[in-house]
């Protein structure tokens, strides 16, 4: 165990005075290592609190750059950082917060061929990612290398958190064996999220990490905690291992992490560029443009004469459209329109195109006056 300097003794004194932690507990934290996958809404409070707590080595996996729309909830960053790589800014910020913590910056997109060596270098894994491909990879690598995984996600006013530590509890695949169809799952960008939600749930993740490292209290193993911010209520659901889990069940079929197949709905959707669409509109030859964003987004900016049919209600309103007619689908940046494409194609529509880059590309290339968000 490393001895604490006088500065460190003072820095961590509010930990050390607690009988559950003491000097020995603080030394345990300082000798531990944690990997945080994603330095966004959840990753921000996770990293800030773990660095402040004096975790010895903190690994960050992130490849994004900071966007102005991140600042509302990603409290690691401030307005001056927009446009910078998240990893560089996070590294600088966390080093300033606590120079005693070693920050390992992993600028990469997790994949089947890099996740195992990474996970093996750390004691505890935190999932603060925002997509299913990464969540399944991290879960599989954590189970296969026997590391506890503090898992959480947020949506609008809600959040959920649990600890996966198979075999003493379930893994992510025990609960959700397969990723859901893409059109069922709105992301933060699409569904929105109140900034405090990742703050609350991410802080809980950091707490679970510290409990796991120190062996304190009752970790959230086998318990899924759901928080509803609107009613200010927590509920707890016991979650059991699935005997037939393909990863941690009695006869597992998954023996190594595998990349999810690239989303099939994204394949084969015919694209149209903003300038091609502008040309058609100017010539009066454009098919009906269907905008699948939410009304509050449509109110900010919309393509002239486009028809608003939010993705969530598309199945209801598809009856008002003619499957034989051509339509151009658009959304904010092009994600939801692909989901809409898949839904309508399955409903028998045969003449669909998707606006490449959505309304944001339109604002960038065709209408510089248009408000962006």
């Amino acid at each position, binding site marked *: 165990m490393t001895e604490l300097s006088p500065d460190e003794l003072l820095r961590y004194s509010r930990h050390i005075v607690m009988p559950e932690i003491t000097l020995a507990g603080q030394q345990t934290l300082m000798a531990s290592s944690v990997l945080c996958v994603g330095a966004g809404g959840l990753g921000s409070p996770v990293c800030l609190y773990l660095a402040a707590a004096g975790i010895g080595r903190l690994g960050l996996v992130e490849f994004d750059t900071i966007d102005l729309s991140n600042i509302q909830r990603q409290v690691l960053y401030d307005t001056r950082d927009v446009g910078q790589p998240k990893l560089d800014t996070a590294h600088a910020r966390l080093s300033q917060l606590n120079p005693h913590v070693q920050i390992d910056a992993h600028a990469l997109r997790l994949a089947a061929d890099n996740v195992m060596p990474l996970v093996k270098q750390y004691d505890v894994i935190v999932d603060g990612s925002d997509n299913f491909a990464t969540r399944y990879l991290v879960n599989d690598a954590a189970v296969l290398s026997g590391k506890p995984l503090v898992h959480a996600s*947020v949506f609008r006013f809600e959040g959920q958190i649990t600890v996966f530590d198979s075999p003493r509890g379930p893994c992510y695949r025990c609960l959700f064996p397969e*990723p859901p169809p893409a059109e*069922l*799952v709105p*992301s933060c960008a699409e569904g929105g999220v109140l900034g405090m939600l990742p703050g609350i749930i991410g802080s809980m993740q950091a707490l679970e990490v510290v409990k796991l490292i120190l062996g304190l209290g009752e970790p959230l193993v086998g318990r899924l905690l759901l928080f509803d911010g609107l009613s200010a209520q927590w509920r707890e659901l016991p979650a059991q291992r699935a005997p037939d889990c393909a990863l941690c069940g009695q006869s597992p079929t998954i023996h190594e992490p595998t990349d999810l197949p690239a989303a099939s709905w994204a394949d084969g959707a015919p694209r149209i560029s903003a300038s091609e669409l502008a040309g058609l509109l100017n010539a009066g030859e454009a098919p009906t443009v269907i905008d699948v964003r939410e009304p509050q987004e449509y109110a900010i900016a919309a393509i002239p004469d486009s028809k608003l049919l939010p993705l969530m209600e598309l199945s209801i309103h598809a009856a008002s459209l003619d499957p034989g007619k051509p339509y151009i689908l658009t959304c904010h940046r092009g994600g939801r329109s692909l989901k809409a494409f898949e839904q309508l194609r399955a409903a028998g529509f045969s003449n669909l195109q998707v606006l490449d880059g959505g309304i944001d590309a339109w604002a960038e290339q065709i209408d510089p006056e248009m408000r962006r968000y």
Partner: protein
Amino acid sequence: MAVRIVFFASLREQLACSSLDWEGRSPQETVASLREKLAREQFPESGAVLLADTVLAAVNQVMAQPEQAVADGDEVAFFPPVTGG
């Protein structure tokens, strides 16, 4: 029988409903039959989202299998996977 139904996350928007008190005529229901009836009768237009097998169900705050019986006065919660971070 009367059953309290609760929806979470994206289901709330997709069904435009976060909870409801459901009155069933049949004295016997399972999680699967209830899910089916909700999707068909209560939400005829948008209910298909409830039938996805990635939507988990819990009876009285305990994760439930499709064949589990639902009794008068129970609370049945449905929650989809959430990925936002």
